[in-house]
């Protein structure tokens, strides 16, 4: 059922005696308006070396990601986890992907790995998705502004319960995330997935994380040893405070 367009007419004076015009819609969409999720199956032909849960599931690194999964359970079992870092190239995508794989390998929960980094999208390449042939999260986000009831198209990875919603090519002038749309999208995804792992952009390179953080249950910061500076990490923490930071994942050098 398509989302009714925003009414530009002022409400009746009986209903709202105040002279202040309402700016927002108060009614929430009902269950019938909840969009569907359509998964497109995609076989992982060539996994990236960083996806240790796929390349070496018995390795030490994979065990660490499983431990990370348990740490988050101890931290209140956040359903929507935002993975970010202070600067780029610090392993955010790697941690988010492996964390999603670690949860998905349990086969008890449906997990969505959502890419929110519009500036440097890399999730598709990491999972070797065909270039610009996979459902693009940014495009669907724009689409759902006008058609909120449109189904969400995701990519189902392998035989697991991991769904992937990556970002395709985005024009530079359009690389701006809309917080309400993202929040609405995340809310819609919560209905279909037990866990949503968001691969967020770096904190200090733009305001995107601040726009996204309210929609997440917890934030995981990623730091790369010998690369991440403590001052940047502190600045990132200050910038996203008072968000619930679950902790820091350190990628050893």
């Amino acid at each position, binding site marked *: 059922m398509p989302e009714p367009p925003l009414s530009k007419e002022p409400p009746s004076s009986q209903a709202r005696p105040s002279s202040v015009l309402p700016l927002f819609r108060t009614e929430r969409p009902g269950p019938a308006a909840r969009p569907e999720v359509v998964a497109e199956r995609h076989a992982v032909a060539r996994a990236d070396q960083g996806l240790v849960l796929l390349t070496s599931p018995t390795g030490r690194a994979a065990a660490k990601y499983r431990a990370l999964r348990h740490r988050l359970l101890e931290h*209140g079992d956040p359903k929507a986890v935002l993975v970010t870092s202070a600067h780029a190239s610090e392993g955010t995508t790697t941690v988010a992907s492996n964390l999603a794989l670690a949860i998905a390998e349990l086969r008890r929960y449906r997990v969505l790995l959502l890419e929110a980094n519009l500036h440097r999208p*890399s999730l598709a390449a990491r999972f070797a998705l065909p270039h610009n042939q996979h459902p693009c999260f940014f495009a669907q986000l724009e689409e759902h502004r006008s058609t909120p009831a449109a189904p969400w198209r995701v990519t189902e990875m392998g035989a697991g319960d991991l769904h992937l919603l990556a970002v395709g090519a985005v024009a530079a002038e359009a690389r701006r995330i809309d917080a309400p749309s993202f929040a609405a999208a995340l809310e819609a995804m919560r209905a279909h997935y037990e866990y949503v792992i968001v691969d967020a952009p770096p904190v200090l390179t733009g305001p995107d994380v601040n726009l996204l953080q*309210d929609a997440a249950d917890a934030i995981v910061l990623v730091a790369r040893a010998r690369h991440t500076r403590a001052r940047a990490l502190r600045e990132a923490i200050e910038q996203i405070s*008072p968000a*619930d930071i679950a902790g820091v994942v350190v990628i050893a050098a």
Partner: protein
Amino acid sequence: MAGALTEGHMRAAPVTPWHVARRTLRHWPVFLAVLATGIAAGVPVVLRTEQVYRSEAVLLYRQTARVGSGEADSSRRAGSRLQDMLLSQERLRRIADEMRLYPQHADRNVAADEMRKRVMLHVRDGSTFLVTFDAADPAVAQAAIARLTQTLIRDNALQRVSEAEETRRLLDGEHQRLAQEVNKRETALTEFLRVHPEAALARSPAPDNRRELDTVQREFAGLRAGRLRADAPAGVTTRPDPDLLAIVRRAEQELATSRLELAEREQRLTDAHPDLMTARERARRAQADLLQARELAAPPLVIEPARPSANGGPSSPARYATDMAGAEMASLEQEITRLRRTGTGSGRRINRHALRVEVELEGLRHDVEQARQQLASLEERQLQAAMVEKVAASGALGQLALLDPASRPGLPLVDVRKKVALAALTVALMLAGGTALLRARADDRIFNDTDAEWMAGQSVLVTVPSTQGRPRRNHA
């Protein structure tokens, strides 16, 4: 949003020294680089550091009586004198020039001062002196100390010769002065005796009354012996008179004393000297008295028994002679008594004029004797000075001798290079450690979970091993 940030999230973990040390050790390449640089910079310094070698020589100082003072030269005083000689500016500058020491000092006086700092003289027991010299080259140290000791011994000998010559000249002048003094005083004595000849005779140890008494006693003893012989029975020898024997003994003593005096004066005085003449006269008179006394005391001859006279007694001429001898003996006894009385009372009648002359004569004699003694002492010292001068000039017997010649040192006195190397290594280590520490303080990169908790104030969920060598810049 599930919750708010708690205070514990931002609370930094306490800093421990171990953590600081671990972070510092992470910068070991910097540490090694600075350490290697420090060592590389220290090696030339160590190689250019001069070692200190000490060469030693031992000098023996023979303690001899010094001409002039007569007291022994103590080791300490000799050490002070030798040190002054050894460290004289002229000597050091000459040796520094000869051996081309300290060429960096154009002013050779500065070179001599530099050398003086490295020359030492130690006074040791047994009248020996240890002379040392420090140099960077063992051969130079040995040569310098050999040259120093050689010049020191030579200059000391020259100084001794000079001192002996000076002493001899001084003693010669003194001898000349004393000889003139003795001559003047002897002239004064001769003149006095010429004016007062009785003074020389009056100094005879036997007074005139005593001599006269002896003469009378000898006559009396002779008469008594003759009478005894006349009265003695025929064939009987008489025993010697004890008085005569005493006279003989006194005459012998007088003769011995006079001869000793004569011998002593003959050694010192000329024949024209009045004292010598007086001594000769006294000896001659003592000899004559002794002969006379011996004649009187000679054992009586065996007298033929006299033929008795008609009346059984001596004949009339014999009787007469005996009577005459008895009368003469009585007269001599009176004379002896008078002379003895006169001799006893002569001390009371002192002739004032004779006494004054006697005192003046004694004063003159005392002056002459004193001058002669001074002259004799001076002649003795003059003889010593001449001997010392001769020995010193010959060089056969030096006061300073080389007991242990200069040796070439095999090991450095102080291993300066080792100390400098240790110091350089210490400085390099400190520099390297300090640089690594500063680098660790300036470097706030996160290396491990401890760093993340400490420096970022956040708990670490997990540390994941890296699956790629280097972070990829193209992907997040």
